[in-house]
């Protein structure tokens, strides 16, 4: 056998529709610098980002509940490599943060050091484009 490997790749592209709930969240973040969620009163759960349905009871929801901008660290880890396995220098710390008023978490960068239970505050970019990257990350309070 002389040919042992045939290489191939998949150059495809997609567009993703954030939807009504995420768009309300992103526009509040961009325009007012606030975190908009939605509350299911029946389940007693506030989802952040906002959703137009409750995953527990499937009721319709509206974006109606502001959360944060402070919150609590639920977990954290350190990434020393990127998605391609290449070394990250310096490493990046990622955290799960539950903003005050929310029952769900946001995954984002932790700008500093905080352990589980530690209090943090959202850091926004001055120029915002309605994206999850309008948030720079969370810094310890």
């Amino acid at each position: 056998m002389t040919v042992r490997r045939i290489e191939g790749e998949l150059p495809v592209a997609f567009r993703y529709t954030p939807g009504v709930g995420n768009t309300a969240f992103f526009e509040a973040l961009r325009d007012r610098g606030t975190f908009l969620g939605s509350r299911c009163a029946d389940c007693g759960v506030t989802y952040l980002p906002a959703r137009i349905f409750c995953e527990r009871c499937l009721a319709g929801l509206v974006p109606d509940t502001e959360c944060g901008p402070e919150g609590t660290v639920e977990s954290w880890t350190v990434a020393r490599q990127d998605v391609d396995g290449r070394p990250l220098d310096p490493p990046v710390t990622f955290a799960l943060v539950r903003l005050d008023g929310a029952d769900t978490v946001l995954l984002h960068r932790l700008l500093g050091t905080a352990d589980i239970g530690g209090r943090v505050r959202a850091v926004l970019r001055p120029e915002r484009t309605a994206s999850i990257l309008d948030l720079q990350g969370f810094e310890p309070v």
Partner: protein
Amino acid sequence: MSPRIGVTGVGWSGFTPTTAGRSYKELMFEAASAAYLDAGLDPRTDVDSFVCASEDLEEGTSIFDEYVPDQLGAVQRPVQTVASDGLFAVATALMLIRSGAANVVAVEAHSKASDILTPGRVDAFALDPVLNRPLGVPALALAGLEMRRYLHASGRTVEQCADVATRNRDQARSNRRASFADVDGDDAPLFDPLTTHQAARSADGCVVIVLASEDRTDGRPTVWMDGIGWSQDAPSVESRDWSRAVAAERAAATAFAQADVGPADIDTAEVDDTFAYKQLQHLDALGLAELDPASVNRSGGAIGEGYLHEANGLARTLAAVEQLRAGDGRAAVVQSWRGVPSTSAAVAVLRMDR
């Protein structure tokens, strides 16, 4: 109780870090041939239906289910693919048999992970494209996040997780399929607190399992598949339970109820150990936290045998079938998880009467 369903044949190939020169079709052919020989049947006439498990992106081919019939003996036969772990394909096979649509079903799953040149990209593409993917976060980071939260909530320690990894490698020494028994324990952090030592490494391989209705087992000593369940937690990173393996809890409740057994009846368990902490979390979910560690992943698990992607659940099932056939217990539980970033799990209960 409805008629039982037996595991009448098992076969495998690979279980090595690479399978250079052999294609996935050839790995499947080898495993299928062994399973049909074990079951003593001709797949072209005796198998009523075929169920595979695969993910297109891991195969590098769209509509991959079109590529499975020829090497299984399934050309011009009923064949389907489940986009999930192989244990979910077993569940589909059980439904085919219980419904009367088939009497004998072959189930297949494989990994040709050594052919995936950018595995981190495949995994990252599974993250939510709106909320998570823009962060450039590797999917494996979710394991570090979950492990820290699990340790915090359960009171278990990093040392206990390291012990799981060490024990699984030790137990793998007596398993001829285990390529990773002697892989050195590397305490370098992967995604803190997860270390390389505590993570299964990718391997190539294929497993085929033949299932048959009770009247097709011809009265031979048979391992019975008496219960199976599957479930999924909230998939989103934002709303999933970060402390417990909720899907495994739900799947176990279903499988135990079907088989009319409880955790106290289980003699041997083959559970997902993609990461050492997941083994502990999954045992918690199955109500098996008190099971003798020597009876958990006697095969060495994925840490010992390698991470076989969609074939992980069938690898655990294969190990359990071999143990029951060898007389190492009468009741086994098998559990699988689809890996990061998923929240899906399946559980099966197997028994051998004596």
